[in-house]
């Protein structure tokens, strides 16, 4: 019935939420139209049941056995028809929901990927709201109700026309009564929606208190504070309860109104109809038909109310979706074409004067961790240098190179990166699980031109086993229940800090970049392991440019060159002849008086 995910989610219309929703609708017009067709068939056959019922009861009044059976069979046929049309309508409605939700998911993901590192930062600062599952559902809900809504409109029209033809006064009651009844509840809807939103917010507040408590449970049970947190949750939970009570108060009024308002139409129809019937200007059968028709109209009325609130919620959700879809990157892209070869030559960070020799392993000993991170971020183009300064690669300012190309050649492993979930194999060697061979080659021969930037293709030189070995992470993998096929949760929470750091380093090594920047990659491992990592790192990266910030003598010892960074960079010598007299080097690496 449907091919999902969509091969291509399309280019959305983002000028306004309404246009966006209409664009979504246009993209799935066929299912919307067939859905509406079945929706109409479904509702009209339901609307016809009261009329047939009236005719049947009319036959009962006239004691006409043949007609009783005949009209009863019509009721049966209509009942079965509405059941069939109902399920077909339902299937199309679900399809409409699925297509639209899938499309929005796909659009949001593509946009998020294009924004790269920017999105998380802007979500964290509240600049854009995070797109939640509920936003996507609400956009889908709008398209879901279309079939039911059209069915409701048409059936309302049919009932109104039939009633107007048979009895103008009764018809008038229905034609005018229904809109009045629908509009009469409108004033309650908006405040109710607001209170529901408040209640949802309070619930999510309480949920985050619970989540905070659970995450910090080791601390609470180890050091105390359970009572404080029980009370804190109690307060949040009370807020939920009082918000729920405020919602319930308004909901109760709506519930009552939804009994009384449609009921009033039924009573009015019955009353006027009874007069007409007693005066013999309306047959008893028609009276029953009108009564049942008026009662039936409750269904389309509820659909109208629901459609209105879904549209309102859908517009709000669509606005949030559009905010992400239209976001632009902060980091400027380079204007030069992608070079055929890497520029070669040393890196120079003009801001600090740090010079990184090409093809060497450089250890940077920063006065503060932040200084080291900032240097690497400038080199990796995660941060721009202060104005007036540049980072040069050979004689090329790196900012002029295309960012996408640059990311393929210069990789920075963060101090505490965001760890994606997946099996160890997926996480470490994504290129292998997806495609064999080099991605860049694939693009070069034009075999796969539609693909965007692809994962790094490890060279034959760096194997999964080799990277794990170098990062001293083989035993980490061995200790996992399913070794390489163990699924790691988000942020790799299931393993310790030290294990995480080593796996992360293996991931960085496997990227096998021309330039690899490692921000204090051994801070959480013990001295034995650190020494082994430092040696293996020098080996596996031999001949390629590697920068590592560190404060460990075991790491600095393995470097070809050591740079001390304190505002400006200065050389602390080369391997085997470190100038330990450097005060900062001494303080940072040797911890003052340790020797």
């Amino acid at each position, binding site marked *: 019935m449907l091919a999902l995910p969509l091969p291509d989610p399309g280019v959305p219309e983002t000028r306004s939420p309404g246009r966006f929703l209409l664009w979504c609708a246009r993209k799935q017009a066929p299912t919307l139209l067939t859905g509406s067709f079945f929706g109409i068939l479904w509702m009209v056959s339901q609307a016809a049941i009261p009329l047939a019922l009236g005719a049947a009861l009319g036959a009962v009044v006239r004691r006409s056995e043949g007609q009783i059976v005949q009209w009863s069979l019509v009721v049966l046929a209509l009942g079965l028809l509405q059941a069939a049309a109902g399920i077909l309508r339902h299937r199309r409605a679900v399809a409409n929901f699925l297509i639209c939700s899938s499309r929005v998911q796909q659009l949001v993901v593509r946009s998020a990927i294009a924004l790269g590192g920017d999105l998380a930062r802007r979500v964290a600062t509240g600049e854009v709201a995070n797109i939640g599952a509920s936003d996507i559902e609400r956009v889908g809900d709008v398209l879901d109700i279309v079939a039911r809504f059209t069915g409701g409109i048409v059936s309302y029209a049919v009932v109104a026309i039939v009633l107007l033809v048979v009895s103008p006064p009764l018809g008038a009651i229905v034609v005018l009564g229904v809109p009045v009844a629908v509009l009469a509840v409108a004033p309650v809807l908006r405040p109710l929606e607001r209170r529901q939103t408040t209640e949802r917010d309070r619930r999510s507040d309480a949920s985050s208190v619970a989540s*905070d408590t659970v995450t910090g449970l080791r601390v609470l049970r180890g050091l105390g504070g359970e009572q404080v947190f029980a009370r804190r949750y109690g307060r949040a939970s009370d807020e939920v*309860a009082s918000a729920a009570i405020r919602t319930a108060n308004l909901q109760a009024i709506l519930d009552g109104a939804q009994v009384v308002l449609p009921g009033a139409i039924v009573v009015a129809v019955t009353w006027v109809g009874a007069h007409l019937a007693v005066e013999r200007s309306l047959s008893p059968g028609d009276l029953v038909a009108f009564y049942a028709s008026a009662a039936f109209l409750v269904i389309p009325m509820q659909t109208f109310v629901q459609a209105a609130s879904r549209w309102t919620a859908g517009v709000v959700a669509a606005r949030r979706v559009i905010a992400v879809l239209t976001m632009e990157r902060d980091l400027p892209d380079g204007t030069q074409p992608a070079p055929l070869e890497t520029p070669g030559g040393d890196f120079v960070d003009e801001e600090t004067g740090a010079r990184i020799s090409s093809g060497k392993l450089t250890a940077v000993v920063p006065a503060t961790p932040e200084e080291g991170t900032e240097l690497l971020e400038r080199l990796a183009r995660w941060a721009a240098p202060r104005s007036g300064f540049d980072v040069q690669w050979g004689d090329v300012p790196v900012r002029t190179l295309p960012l996408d190309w640059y990311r393929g050649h210069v990789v920075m492993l963060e101090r505490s*990166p965001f760890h994606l979930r997946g099996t160890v194999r997926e996480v470490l060697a994504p290129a292998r699980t997806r495609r064999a061979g080099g991605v860049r080659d694939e693009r070069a021969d034009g075999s796969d031109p539609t693909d965007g930037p692809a994962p790094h293709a490890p060279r034959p030189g760096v194997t999964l086993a080799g990277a794990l070995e170098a990062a001293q992470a083989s035993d980490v993998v061995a200790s996992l229940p399913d070794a390489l096929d*163990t699924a790691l949760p988000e942020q790799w929470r299931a393993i310790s800090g030290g294990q995480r750091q080593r796996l992360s380093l293996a991931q960085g090594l496997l990227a096998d970049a021309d330039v690899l920047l490692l921000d204090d990659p051994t801070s959480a491992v013990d001295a034995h392991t650190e020494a082994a990592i430092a040696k293996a790192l020098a080996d596996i990266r031999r001949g390629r440019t590697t920068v590592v910030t560190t*404060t460990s003598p075991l790491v600095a010892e393995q470097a070809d060159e050591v740079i001390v960074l304190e505002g400006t960079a200065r050389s602390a010598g080369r391997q085997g002849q470190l100038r330990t007299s450097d005060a900062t080097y001494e303080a940072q690496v040797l911890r003052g008086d340790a020797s």
Partner: protein
Amino acid sequence: MSDAAAPVVEDTALPVAARRTVRRYVRTAIRREWRASAAVVGFFALAAVAGLVGPQVLGQVVADAAGKGRALGRVELAAAVFAAALVAQGVAATFASRTAGHLTARLLARLRGDFVGAVLALPLGVVERAGTGELQTRASSDVEQLTWSVRQAAPQMVVAIGQCVAIVVALLVTAPPLGLVLVPTVPFLAAGTRWYLKRARPGYERTMATWDETNGRVQETAAGGRTIETFRLGDLRIAQIDEDIRRWVAAERYTLRLRTFYFPMAEACYVVPLVLALVVGGMLHVDGRLSIAATTAAVLYVQLLISPVDTVLSYLDEIQLGTASLSRLLGVREVDAPPLATTDPAGEDVVAKDVRYAYRTGHDVLHAIDLLPRPGSRVVLVGPSGAGKSTFALLLSGVHAPRSGYVRVGGVDAHTLPPERLRSQVALVTQEYHVFNGTLRENLALSATGATDEDLVRALDVVDARPLLERLPAGLDTALGPGAVQLSPGEAQQLALARLVLADPHTLVLDEATALLDPRTARHLERSLARVLEGRTVIAVAHRLQAAADADQVVVVDGGRVVEQGTHEELIAAGGRYAALWRSWQGTVAGG
């Protein structure tokens, strides 16, 4: 470290409450609120009964209209009764909805409180083993599911069941023989519903799980954008999310297929009694055995029954899901607590004797470890990753019970001490930190509720966190956590140590507690901490060897065994493994 020994990603299976326990809980909860519960049922019943008037009135009017005489007076009366019944129904429905809303709000609040209370009382070992994932799911998804079931499904269910009963009774009173028209469809409806429900619950659970999975991946893509960009995983992410969507759609399709069979079947079951009522009622009227008023009313009752029956059937699966969530929430209360010690520890000595431990049966990670730190001394554990140091730290701090041998605090087995008592004796700080969403003050004064501002500031001073305090805009009252001030990992570790200073136990177990700080800060912190901890026993797992040089006793652990033990000088003199490592360290230093 905690490394090789850690119980990775294991399914920890917190208990799930039995059906009987759930029933008992619900019964008790309702009994406690019997007044409100009775009011809810009363109002709903009133509304249901008032809703029965319409068909009666109509039957009467039809009879009058079909009759010979003109009965306008009776028609007016009937219409007035109908209108009055409608008003009564509306008022009753309003109050029913209101009281039900208030009642469910209170019931849910109590349940949430019970759940979090139970979570906060979990034994340390269970918390450590279970990790937080499973509890997290229960605290969020299960609470949310239950809220939905109780707020939406339960009241609808009560109303609908009430209406069904009222309508069937009214039908039987109005036209007893027509009650039979309901009978033929019952077996079909029952069998179909059973067929559907059996498959629906796993089906909907899979739908929800795959939808959550898809959204989780989308969220992760947003949050992990930098990692994705660094490793150029964009295409792979798109492929993965496409796969997630495929799975979600497949799950949706499965439940849709179930509904494709079930819904039309159910609706056919609704229309058949209506047709039977028309035919049978009509024939009975033709034969003169049933009045026109009764026939009309009965037929309308049968039609009126459709909607509540449909409601009951369509909310059954919600009730099922809600019950499952409730079982999981109540299950947390059933965690087996280890038998607790009744005696108080005598003295401040911590002794580990012949300690063995295994995360998985048959795989000991600690082999007969002994440790007798002199009270007030400083012991440093060193050794390669996976040696079992962190596991040993967990045992020393009473989180886990040794498989054999013992860890005793003042003569009492550490793991049998209730956490409230244990923490005044021994406390553990690891490199896994947590900053609570709250002010700095709240984050510090966890147990030390009586601590003054001076106490808190002094504790921050001890861990060299004065600069942090000065950086914060509102001092101790600055809100920390997501959406507020975010601490760096190093600062969070300082915070953890400040909590420890405030808790002031006689023995501190520090597992890489300064690993996330830069070395200069770490070293300074360790020194100022040492001054404050004068007289306290400190057992520290460390990877920076300088820490070992200052210790009273160095313990080298490898492969779950103590391989060397002594003072720094003794070990150097012994020329063993420690000496070798120290030399390589020294060599570097001397290399300049």
